[in-house]
């Protein structure tokens, strides 16, 4: 009786009213594709079966275990994701700190800093491929003019260099995502705290370490999480820049999945690939958050 009228249950009601539209929309757009991927993954449905679904249990998963291409793409994706997210985080944080300063023309600089994120990937990927071209590319042109190299470096033709170029392009493209998010976070930290801390005798680095970082942590975590998910699902940039080459060195998981589904019409297997990738990602995030919690519990006050 009391429960029905309690403030808490009112709060619950309001909470759910506020949540419902969002949850419904998420359900509507995400639930079907996700569930369907799980469902399809236990069928074989490809050109061999004339695109008719034939129940095949875990066959697809068994096949995946022996699919070197998948594991290789998973590895490539991991390398790509780790490298680009880490560099983006550092760079993004640095840029956010710069943008957070008060200086003349800050608006222009902020806008400029967001620019890479604003350029359409499909188009800018082309531009990057061109920039890294060993003959007409400006990277080589500049290096040649500076006398740093004698002949053009074959950026996109070498497995390692191609991966690096793709990472660089991605870092360039998506660092603004992190920096603008962190900028907003920085702006929400009260000036008072810095004042108090500087009176306490903190230098710039110390206030960064002990005030900025801990208070920025929520935004950092969100930025990293989203970039992690996006980088793991990177598709268009790589598709345009290297097409997965050379020799599959830059073939990332979503490129492989996309080919499997859209080009090979191997739906069942594609779904299984999706499911496994998805589960691996969830596991990775779960482990990361577990470790983070443990670390936070152990060192109170620190990040």
């Amino acid at each position, binding site marked *: 009786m009391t429960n029905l009228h309690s403030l808490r249950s009112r709060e619950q009601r309001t909470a759910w009213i506020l949540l419902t539209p969002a949850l419904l929309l998420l359900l509507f757009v995400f639930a079907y594709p996700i569930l369907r991927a799980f469902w399809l993954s236990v069928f074989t449905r*490809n*050109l*061999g079966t*004339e*695109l008719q679904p034939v129940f095949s249990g875990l066959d697809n998963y068994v096949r995946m275990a022996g699919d070197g*291409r998948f594991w290789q793409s998973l590895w490539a994706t991991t390398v790509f994701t780790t490298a680009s997210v880490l560099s983006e985080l550092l760079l993004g944080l640095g840029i956010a700190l710069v943008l957070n300063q008060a200086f003349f023309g800050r608006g222009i600089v902020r806008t400029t800093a967001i620019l890479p994120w604003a350029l359409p990937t499909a188009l800018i990927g082309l531009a990057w491929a061109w920039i890294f*071209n*060993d*003959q*007409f590319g400006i990277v080589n042109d500049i290096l040649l003019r500076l006398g740093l190299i004698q*002949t*053009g470096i*074959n*950026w*996109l*033709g*070498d*497995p390692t260099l*191609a991966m690096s170029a793709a990472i660089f392009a991605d870092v360039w493209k998506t660092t603004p995502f992190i920096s603008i998010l962190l900028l907003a976070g920085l702006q929400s930290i009260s000036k008072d705290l810095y004042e108090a801390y500087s009176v306490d005798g903190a230098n710039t680095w110390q206030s960064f370490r002990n005030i900025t970082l801990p208070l920025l942590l929520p935004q950092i975590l969100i930025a990293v999480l989203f970039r992690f998910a996006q980088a793991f699902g990177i598709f268009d940039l790589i598709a345009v820049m*290297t*097409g*997965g*080459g*050379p*020799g*599959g*060195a830059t*073939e990332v998981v979503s490129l492989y999945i996309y*080919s499997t589904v*859209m*080009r*090979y*019409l*191997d739906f069942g297997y594609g779904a299984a690939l999706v499911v496994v990738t998805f589960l691996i990602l969830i596991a990775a995030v779960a482990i990361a958050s577990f470790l983070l919690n443990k670390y936070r519990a152990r060192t109170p006050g620190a990040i």
Partner: protein
Amino acid sequence: SQRPVTLSMLITAPDAQPWKQGLIRDFEAENPGIRINLVEGPNATNLLEDLYTSSFILGESPYDLVNMDVIWTSKFAAAGWLLPLDDRISKQELTAFSPKDVEGGRYQNKLYRIPVRSDVGMLYYREDLIKEAGLKPPETFEDLMQISQALQKKDKVNWGYVWQGRQYEGLVAMFVEVLDGFGGFWVNPDTLEVGLDRPETLRAIEFLRSTIREGVSPPGVTTYQEEDTRRLFQSGQVAFLRSWPYAWPLAQAKGSPIQGKIAIKPMVHAPGQTGAACLGGWGIGIAKSSKHPEEAWKAIQYFTSEKVQHRFILSAGYVPSRRDLFTNPEIVAKYPHYPQLLEVVDNAVLRSPIAQYAQTSDILQRYLSAALSGRTSPERAMQAAANETRRLLVARD
């Protein structure tokens, strides 16, 4: 009176303009009961393929006419998205087209596609330089290397030969030519035999690798697509180019540094073999889900008729699918290299018309690219490619 029937057709963006101005307008004028709704797709052909795929997967394709690249036919047919056309056209009529082109429209002995445009790979070369050096155009791979190096040594060109080496469909198209030139084969569509781990294949790879190793091709050639190579060639720095006919009008355009200095010929080959050309090109089929197959067929007939093609080629500069047109005086007057091209077309090889072509091609692309970029040794790469291909083909049948 009846409401006009509308036929939808998807087309790459660059093709839309010529089609709209030529074929479509005329067709609609002649067939008042039929409208053609030309959907402009993306520029890149692979995106076009994906668009088709997604719309077909959903069952009811919005397209009645399916404008296909030659390598899609078997997949679309195997997936059951196309209407067989055998009953509608006689063998007799088909002979007017290049036989390889027609073959490319078949899957498991049924015809699904009528060619509208041909496309073949061929060798462009700097006629002026070769003449100047007192040499003859190359016939064999070795010739190609020697001439290149000779010209490079004289500083006539920076590079001898450029080809498409990026990991993509173009790599395969280029490679089947070299492979055929060495007498090898990829997949036999009838027996599904895989020839990738045979010595001919390794020799073909070795040739390509040697072009880079010996400085005949730039190292970046393993990342090039058609345009990269054409631009390099057109800038006058290269003696030989493997490309499609589209490069011709561009290279010969006003202001091009190599205008009037080039010629084409079929791809070079190993001694004792013949040069091969990879067949590309577009053709039209009818979607199984189309509600107006009769009208669609009418359109196809119209688009592929000699009269219309004649006009279309003159205005748009495409390579015809009908053999006669290559030697048609009016056309030759405008495109003097077409008779030569016919020779190339006749020697064309098809990329294996099997249902799983896309996947087979991807396997080859990856391993080939790996071998060319030095990621793995050619032997290991091809062994793996062959095995994977075999596994794929066995699994499906």
